[in-house]
């Protein structure tokens, strides 16, 4: 069944192209998009774990050095890939479902961008080839720009353009780093590069090797929206349609973990790599949450919180132990789900009120009780309140940093969680609990049922992962153990 592995990329990619080509036929496009979207979470669940070599070029053994070489572009599929791809597939399905039910006439190019982004992050997760990863990273960046530019929110073009300009700095710098690695090792296969580095074929203190780390690291900061790119990342979330923002943040999280895991495999012997990851993760946590506290636009607030949460993921990877990396990846999975729930939920409020300023909102609990309760639980999950999924991953991260001898980081993580809780209490009070302002019109504006359905599905997953975290943690831990 390993033939299903490339299909995880090919299916959304082909769907994107076909939908774009035949978007004139509205009804057919809708049905086709819906069917493909349903297939996306099913394919990774139905597929067996294993490797796929494009072109059928199997690895070759060098009898002199006893080293394996991988001539083909290789896709590696194991438990973390399965769970993340299934989650991205589910999220794509929910987002496409919301989009299809929201508009009578659907836009082929917009659906093209959604499926293209999904194909790109799936390929980034699966690939064992650093250049292949870069190509899909570029495709993903273009899809993200398109999703933001296609929204009908003011200044979305401007924000998309800024993101593209910053990307034109981050991406070539990353490509240069990959070029240096290729020059040093003669390969773009990550397993081959890691073997060359760890077998002493590459001098780890050589300036070229260190420079490649610095350049790829900078590209990673752009991909993941860590400082200095936290402002633009939160900006593009706030300028995209709410369902689009839910998918965009999941793209960011996936590209973050796929690149950092590749970097970890290559550079983990260099202590400075872990120092850099921890430094920028702490910076993201501090800046993200403190700026979220001062926002009055709640979409921007969620954007900054999402950036702050990325710091937790980086922290887990940066600490570098099996337990810490497992916690980081579990946090990544939780963030994808929780932030998507919040973006869709707050999007539902925008849909019902046409207002994004918390100062002009109030009393919405009486009008939209289902949305408000689900948003509250989502907010509590993000803040790390038990027994929700965010609590489990954050507790693991606190324990991991304590066991690594960094109690300061544990205290900081707890402080960030408390500050996140404050953000939610403040926003929830402002939007739902205080008296409704007289000039706010909410009568007769219903929240689309598809949004409530999507929130309900995500909420169930949050509660399930909170109560039964082991169903994910054990598989991730085994994968991380193998990687280390």
């Amino acid at each position, binding site marked *: 069944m390993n033939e299903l592995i490339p299909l995880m990329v090919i299916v959304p990619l082909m769907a994107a192209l076909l939908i774009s080509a035949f978007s004139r036929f509205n009804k057919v496009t809708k049905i086709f998009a819906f069917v493909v979207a349903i297939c996306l979470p099913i394919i990774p669940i139905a597929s067996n774990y294993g490797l796929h070599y494009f072109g059928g070029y199997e690895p070759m053994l060098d009898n002199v050095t006893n080293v394996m070489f991988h001539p083909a572009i290789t896709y590696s599929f194991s438990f973390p890939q399965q769970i993340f791809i299934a989650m991205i597939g589910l999220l794509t399905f929910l987002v496409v479902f919301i989009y299809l039910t929201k508009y009578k006439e659907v836009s082929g190019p917009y659906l093209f961008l959604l499926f293209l982004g999904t194909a790109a992050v799936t390929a980034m997760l699966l690939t064992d080839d650093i250049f292949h990863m870069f190509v899909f990273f570029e495709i993903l960046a273009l899809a993200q720009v398109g999703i933001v530019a296609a929204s009908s929110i003011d200044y979305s073009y401007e924000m998309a353009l800024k993101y593209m*300009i910053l990307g034109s700095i981050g991406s070539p710098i990353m490509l240069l780093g990959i070029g240096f690695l290729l020059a040093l090792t003669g390969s773009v296969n990550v397993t081959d590069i890691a073997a060359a580095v760890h077998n002493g074929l590459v001098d780890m203190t050589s300036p070229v090797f260190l420079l490649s780390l610095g350049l790829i690291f900078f590209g990673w900061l752009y991909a993941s929206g860590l400082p200095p790119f*936290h402002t633009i990342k939160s900006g593009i979330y706030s300028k995209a349609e709410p369902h689009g923002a839910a998918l965009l943040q999941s793209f960011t999280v996936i590209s973050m973990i796929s690149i950092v895991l590749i970097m970890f495999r290559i550079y983990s012997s260099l*202590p*400075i790599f872990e120092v850099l990851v921890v430094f920028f993760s702490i910076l993201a946590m501090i800046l993200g949450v403190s*700026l979220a506290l*001062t926002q009055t636009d709640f979409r921007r607030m969620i954007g900054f919180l999402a950036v702050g949460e990325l710091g937790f993921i980086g922290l887990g990877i940066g600490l570098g132990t099996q337990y810490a990396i497992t916690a980081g990846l579990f946090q990544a999975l939780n963030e994808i789900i929780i932030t998507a729930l919040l973006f869709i939920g707050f999007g539902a409020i925008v849909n019902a009120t046409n207002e994004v300023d918390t100062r002009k909102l109030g009393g919405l609990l009486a009008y939209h009780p289902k949305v408000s309760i689900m948003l509250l639980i989502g907010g509590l999950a993000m803040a790390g309140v038990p027994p929700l999924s965010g609590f489990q991953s954050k507790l693991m991260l606190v324990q991991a940093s304590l066991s690594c001898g*960094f109690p300061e980081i544990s205290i900081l993580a707890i*402080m960030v969680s408390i*500050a996140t809780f404050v953000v939610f209490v403040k926003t929830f009070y402002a939007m739902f609990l205080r008296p409704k302002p007289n000039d706010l019109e909410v009568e007769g504006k219903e929240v689309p049922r598809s949004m409530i359905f999507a929130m309900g599905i995500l909420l169930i997953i949050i509660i399930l992962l909170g109560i039964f975290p082991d169903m994910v943690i054990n598989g991730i831990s085994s994968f991380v153990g193998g990687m280390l």
Partner: protein
Amino acid sequence: MKLYDQIFDVVKQFRKLFSPGPVTNADVSGSITAEIFIIVSIVLAAILLRHVSVLLAGLVTLILAIVLISNIPLIPKFKIEQEDSLEKMLFYAIVVLCIIVVFLYWGGNLV
């Protein structure tokens, strides 16, 4: 007394942060929380320098605490620096590249 006046003045300055538009209690309390959070978290993060040198960590923590507290309110300044201007984003991208170079130059040979 001077510090008390300074803290009281912070609340007044938050008005500018939220203009145009009304300033609610929740916004001001959120900003004060952010102010305290940012000072404490930066000082706390500076303690991590003890893994390099205990003396350095002590000095940096002390200096940071004094500089940050005497410069409140920090949040309006932070917010101005973190706005959506492309020039500022590019400036900080270059600053971060420099930081990475500094890290690798002095820490790259720790194998």
